[in-house]
């Protein structure tokens, strides 16, 4: 282990030699003492103190972990279809994947934002961005299910999203890549002339959480990278880092790294709201999709939208400013008081910390250093509060502990550095393994951080765990930050590539967690509310099977009369009303997926039988002692055959609903004879 580690260090020695602060910290074997293990230990049957929600990066999903144990609680499917439970394959969830490009079954999820009330997490919803096909998704934290996806039009690479304001008024979402707006066929080297970047303000309905694209601000063609919103006194303002203010379009790693300073956008969104009210926007025709899970039917519905409202900073004075930030900033983080804004210039040797009060004063005194495309550039010196000198190499992201300290990840020097926000003094540094991207402290971006733990999410794994071939899980390290020095207490692999994560006290979510869906509220049009209502109906070559599941049988479990070429819809209602009794449904020859149906829920699988025969179907969730018996047969006859549609459960197969009703009435009487 140690040799490998040293090899790795040697491999990056050139970079490390550049670091004046090349403190590589202690070896992990020394750090993980007995007391550290105890701190991360959550005894069997006990609960973690926090939920940590990690984005999945290229998995497109979200994972929920417990802290401090690092135990994986659930993978929540969001932007990627998930055959494991039928998300994106069932008829009810297909519409979640609709976009202006058609069905897009995957995305790259980056930044988790939990809903906030008065600058604190309220545990209601979780928002996450899809990077590649610009989208924002909402997860309901009572069910841990994706319930809404909104496409963002005319942007490219929605990386700078979905950063939330302190009362969840808006999700601020900027484009990573600038593109021609509206899209048109132009030579790429006309970038400077034709390419623009949109910053989107997505409003969140305070009662239901529904998202709506409120307005877009048309900005110069930079790359908008990350953002944070003000809090407390700076509430009403957004801060967004940019890179490529060189406005280059090729070999960005060199060409977009030439300027000493790039620009941070500072947006007064209250002012923008005022301009919207005054009607100072222009409308543009476009196309984007809004997909929403209907709470009553539990069916996702898609709506295409065709208009956006755009504000132009040139027409709207005092709405947008720029501030210079040293060399290609990445993260841009606001401390719990709302006064300090940290610009992490990833190629800079120092970190610039800005003061909100000074920014306001500079704006008031018009202390500007020129302008870019009509947008005033605030003087760097006037806005600057101070500089953290030589903190490390490659600063990316900063979070806060609520005790006046900031914690910044350094990608190149592979460490987390703790520093004092007011004095800019460096207090501690600890190595991570290896090269951290984001870090998360529970509530670390809110007004009231819970500064007990810190998780660094690393981009490089190499020798941290037993090898698994060329592709490795990403590693995360958990630090106890309650003392003066950060202490590594746990190391755990994660799913996909977590970028940002947010963590929240368990007691803000646990009491509201839904155990099962109340079947009395099931308004699904194909729900079968009781075994006596099970039936099969044919409409041309469409066949609808109204099926129920309850321990330990599917009803009906014998069906005849399907024909090759039919489109068979199995509408399975789980009649259970108890916690943790899902039933599954799988049928041979299905070319899509299976269904996993929660108690009280209805889900539909389309099956298109391709050849005659008798095909088995069964419950895929080991639901009960007689789970293996929970199965049935579907008979498929050749196209044009006259085998009638018949179905049943432990009876002579029947052909109509009245027979089914009579059967169950008789069964009920039989059951009562003994009394």
């Amino acid at each position, binding site marked *: 282990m140690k040799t490998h580690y040293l090899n790795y260090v040697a491999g990056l020695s050139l970079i490390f030699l550049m670091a004046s602060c090349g403190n590589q910290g202690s070896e992990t074997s020394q750090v993980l003492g007995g007391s550290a293990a105890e701190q991360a230990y959550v005894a069997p049957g006990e609960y973690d103190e926090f939920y940590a929600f990690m984005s999945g990066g290229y998995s497109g999903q979200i994972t929920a972990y417990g802290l401090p144990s690092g135990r994986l609680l659930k993978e929540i499917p969001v932007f990627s279809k998930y055959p494991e439970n039928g998300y994106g394959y069932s008829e009810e969830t297909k519409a979640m994947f609709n976009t202006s490009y058609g069905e897009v079954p995957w995305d790259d999820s980056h930044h988790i934002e939990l809903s906030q009330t008065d600058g604190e997490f309220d545990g209601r919803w979780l928002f996450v961005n899809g990077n590649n096909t610009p989208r924002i998704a909402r997860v309901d934290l009572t069910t841990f299910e994706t319930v809404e996806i909104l496409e963002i039009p005319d942007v490219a690479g929605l990386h700078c999203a979905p950063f939330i304001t302190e009362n969840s008024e808006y999700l601020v979402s900027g484009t990573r890549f600038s593109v021609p707006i509206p899209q048109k066929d132009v030579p790429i080297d006309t970038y400077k002339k034709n390419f623009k970047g949109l910053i989107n303000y997505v409003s969140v309905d305070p009662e239901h959480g529904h998202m709506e694209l409120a307005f877009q601000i048309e900005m110069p063609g930079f790359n908008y990278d990350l953002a944070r919103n003000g809090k407390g006194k700076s509430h009403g303002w957004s801060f967004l880092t940019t890179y490529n203010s060189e406005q280059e379009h090729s070999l960005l790693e060199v060409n977009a790294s030439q300027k000493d300073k790039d620009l941070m956008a500072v947006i007064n969104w209250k002012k923008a709201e005022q301009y919207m009210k005054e009607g100072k926007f222009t409308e543009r025709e476009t196309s984007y999709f809004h997909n929403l899970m209907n709470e009553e039917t539990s069916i996702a519905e898609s709506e295409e939208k065709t208009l956006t409202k755009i504000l132009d900073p040139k027409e709207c004075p005092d709405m947008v400013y720029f501030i210079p930030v040293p060399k290609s900033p990445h993260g841009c983080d606001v401390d719990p008081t709302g006064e300090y804004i940290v610009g992490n210039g990833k190629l800079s040797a120092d970190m610039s910390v800005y003061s909100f009060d000074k920014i306001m004063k500079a704006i008031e005194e018009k202390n500007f250093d020129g302008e870019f495309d009509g947008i005033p550039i605030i003087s760097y010196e006037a806005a600057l509060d101070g500089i953290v000198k030589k903190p490390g190499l490659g600063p990316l992201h900063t979070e806060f502990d609520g005790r006046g300290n900031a914690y910044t990840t350094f990608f190149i020097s592979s460490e987390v550095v703790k520093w004092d926000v007011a004095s800019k003094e460096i207090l501690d540094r600890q190595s991570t393994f290896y090269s951290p991207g984001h870090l998360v402290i529970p509530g670390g971006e809110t007004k009231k951080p819970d500064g007990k733990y810190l998780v660094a999410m690393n981009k490089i794994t190499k020798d941290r765990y037993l090898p698994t071939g060329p592709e490795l899980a990403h590693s995360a390290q958990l630090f106890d930050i309650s003392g003066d020095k950060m202490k590594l207490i746990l190391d755990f692999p994660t799913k996909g590539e977590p970028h940002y994560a947010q963590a929240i006290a368990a007691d803000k979510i646990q009491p509201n967690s839904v155990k099962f869906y109340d079947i009395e509220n099931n308004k699904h049009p194909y729900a079968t509310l009781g075994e006596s209502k099970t039936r099969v109906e044919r409409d041309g070559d469409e066949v609808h099977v109204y099926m129920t599941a*309850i*321990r*330990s049988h599917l009803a009906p479990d014998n069906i005849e009369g399907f024909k090759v070429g039919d489109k068979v819809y199995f509408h399975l209602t789980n009649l*259970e*009303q*108890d916690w943790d009794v899902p039933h599954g449904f799988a049928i041979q020859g299905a070319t899509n997926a299976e269904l996993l149906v929660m108690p009280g829920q209805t889900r539909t699988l389309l099956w298109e039988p391709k050849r005659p025969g008798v095909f088995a179907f069964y419950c895929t969730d080991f639901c*009960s*002692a*007689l789970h293996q*018996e929970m199965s049935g047969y579907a008979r498929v006859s050749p196209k044009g055959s006259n085998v009638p549609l018949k179905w049943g459960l432990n009876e002579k197969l029947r052909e109509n609903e009245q027979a089914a009703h009579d059967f169950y009435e008789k069964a009920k009487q039989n*059951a*009562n004879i*003994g*009394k």
Partner: protein
Amino acid sequence: MSLKQKSRLPQILMLLGVLSLGAVFLFPLWQITLDAAQFPGGLKMHIWINKISGSEKNIIQNINILNHYIGMQYIEPDSIPELKYFPLVAYSMMAIGLISLVLNKAWAYLSWFIIIAILGALGIYDFYLWLYDYGHNLDPKAPIKVPGMTYMPPLLGEKDLLNFYVTSYPHLGSGFLGLSTLLSFAAFWVKRKS
């Protein structure tokens, strides 16, 4: 003064007795708890004078699902006639209690006491018969058959039934019923002494 007060005491006791009887509509008579590893907190079934409820809304469905594996009959409150006529009996006894209170005679209190005591004993015997029936009258086609095994829950006490540890004890409603019986006897006693 003190004599007058004393003469009122039996009526007050009887009134309290009648009110206690009314409390059977507010609290369950019996609680049967099924404990097993997979059911944290246990499944608690409450038997009332007029209904069956439980620690969760769907308790009967969930117990029925478990019971059908061993061939027990479905518990269907609608087909248990006692849940319909027991409340009428209770209302009648409350009415008779009020009449005895107006009569304010020792024999009236004593009669009421004897009737309620007999009814209470009959109620418990009836409950026992139901438990016996549920526990012994099993479907011969049950998926799980354990030779010689029956599943009658204890009337009073605790018992292992396959994976469940079953606990059966009176609940608050029975307490009030007992209290009502004692109060009527006290009314009789005080009246007779005076």
